């Protein structure tokens, strides 16, 4: 796909920023010790990357979905976890607000998130309710001007550092399945809100993930986001954009792994010649590059579909996420194979990329959930 000169310039800028600021030392430190790098976050915020896709009137940069995809791709090419820093306010954090926040909510919550002054996260998943919203047990009971929130969310990316969370809770126990669920903007500093210990993870270590527990939390009714009892439909709409982001992260990871593999294959000599002279190796590189390019075109096309509000945008996002995340796992596997034993050693970047890639087929809808979404659109 031929990008506009503006998008080309954005790519150049995202790449320059990532290559300069996401140093190997920072990446390795985050992977080893987890936590959160506030210095990188401060720079991401200063240059407006937390608001790439958020309109200018709410403190964002006014970019489109393609700009957002390019940012995720280029940041992930260097460091997937730092891409997530910039991604969250643009997608799952800011998305539900942008989709159905009123003016007051947008000003109060979206603007500081877009400017990187506050962290806002997305809290849908529960220990017993992942892909199936019907089993959601967190509930919100009306009490005068307030709702009383009780329940537990799990695997919430960014929870330990969050100022606000978009929380899904059952408001009408009489309704079944996805109905009867509402969205709330919850101030994480309210009494009764607590976070679990950050989970040790296989990959994307350095963006903390934990439980959030709500124990009789009083949330003002002004913080009900969108229509009562119909919040889940909005969640699904937000997930489209999030899926595009995950697809672009997968693309960046695969591109990064390919570049590592190419340079290693040219350097590494066995039997008196670089291993890239062996067809067994060079054809693997050809397959990797071809799959990456296919994913890139699928993702950019899905981004443009979102930007033009195309009817099939949602399905395209699912396809992009499904294909790109599976592709990234295949490509990272091959990158390790080309590195041989060295690819198994932590000193080599492909080892980390392989682990970081793994979550891509899991979060924001597993590959199997994407298959359900895609096949249902064919069979309806």
């Amino acid at each position, binding site marked *: 796909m031929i990008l506009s*000169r503006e998008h080309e*310039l*954005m790519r150049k*800028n995202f790449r320059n*920023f990532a290559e300069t600021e996401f140093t190997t030392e920072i990446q390795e430190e985050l992977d080893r010790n987890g936590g959160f790098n506030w210095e990188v976050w401060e720079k991401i915020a200063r*240059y407006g990357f937390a608001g790439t896709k958020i309109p*200018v009137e709410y403190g964002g*940069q*006014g970019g489109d979905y393609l700009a957002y995809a390019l940012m995720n791709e280029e940041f992930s090419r260097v460091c997937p976890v730092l891409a997530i820093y910039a991604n969250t306010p643009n997608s799952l954090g800011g998305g539900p607000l942008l989709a159905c926040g009123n003016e007051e909510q947008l000003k109060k919550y979206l603007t500081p998130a877009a400017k990187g002054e506050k962290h806002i996260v997305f809290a849908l998943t529960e220990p017993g309710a992942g892909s199936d919203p019907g089993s959601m047990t967190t509930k919100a009971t009306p009490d005068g001007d307030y709702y009383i929130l009780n329940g537990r969310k799990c695997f919430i990316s960014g929870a330990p550092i969050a100022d606000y969370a978009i929380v899904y809770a059952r408001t009408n126990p009489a309704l079944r399945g996805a109905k009867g669920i509402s969205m709330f903007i919850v101030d994480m500093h309210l009494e009764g809100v607590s976070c679990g210990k950050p989970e040790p993870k296989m990959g994307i270590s350095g963006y903390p993930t934990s439980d959030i527990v709500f124990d009789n939390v009083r949330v003002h009714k002004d913080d009900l986001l969108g229509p009562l009892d119909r919040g889940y439909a909005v969640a699904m709409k937000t997930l489209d954009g999030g899926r595009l982001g995950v697809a672009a992260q997968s693309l960046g990871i695969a591109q990064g792994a390919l570049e590592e593999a190419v340079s290693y294959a040219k350097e590494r000599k066995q039997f008196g010649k670089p291993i890239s002279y062996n067809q067994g190796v060079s054809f693997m590189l050809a397959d990797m590059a071809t799959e990456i390019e296919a994913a890139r075109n699928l993702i950019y096309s899905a981004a443009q579909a979102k930007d033009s509000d195309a009817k099939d945008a949602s399905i395209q996002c699912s396809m992009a996420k499904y294909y790109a995340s599976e592709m990234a796992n295949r490509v990272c596997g091959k990158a390790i194979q080309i590195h041989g034993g060295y690819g198994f050693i932590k000193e080599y970047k492909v080892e980390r990329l392989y682990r970081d890639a793994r979550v891509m087929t899991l979060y924001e809808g597993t590959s199997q959930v994407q298959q359900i979404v895609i096949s249902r659109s064919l069979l309806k």
Partner: protein
Amino acid sequence: MRIYVCVKQVPDTSGKVAVNENGTLDRASMATIINPDDMSAMEAALRIKDETGCQVTAVTMGPPPAEGMLRELIAMGADDGVLISGREFGGSDTFATSQIVAGALSHLGVGEEDIIFCGRQAIDGDTAQVGPQIAEKLNLPQVTYAAAIEKDGKVLKVRRLLEDGYMTVEVQTPCLITCVKELNEPRYMTVKGILECYKKPVAVLDFEALKDEPLIDLDTIGLKGSPTNIFRSFTPPQKGAGQMLAGSPQEMVNELAGQLAAKHVI
């Protein structure tokens, strides 16, 4: 108040370096970047803009594709750009270039409160001559090698980075300052800046626009008019590896004196 920032598109010397038969750089076949010292000059200007809200204009002389560089500088925060471009200007050395740029700046108008920022030198020619020559031709005070700048009204206090120390100089606007990379850390573009950069004005000053400028002598511009002739271009031979001496200071001094005596240096 307006700040002009003179910038140059230079070959990316971290990539492949190609030289023409006549010894000049084969710029067409090399990737380009914005000269690093010029980025510091732009950042210095943008910091003054952040404080005062003044206008910042990026000025360059080069072939038409140099417009892309001006757009990037606008995406960083400059208000507009000026591209000095014409076949007649091609191949100019520093003497010719500074005449043309000075002529263009004079054409645009340098006011009482205005400042001209340049990078110290470009990484392709490494001459550090164009900035000072522009100042001379415009009859403006100049301060070179700026590593820190404080502005107080019309007075600028500039700390110059010299080989053996610092020198602090006060200068009044209008003036020209050349900047070193130690001055600051240039900012990145923003998405918003990029979305707007192609909508902002970039003026092109060609030969027709500038030929009557009194500062430009038409006989001494371009490749033919330039007094500099390149005799030969070559890659200098690599210096041999250094030798580290070990031991106590007395032992190292004895060893060093012995080696220098053996080479008849002392």
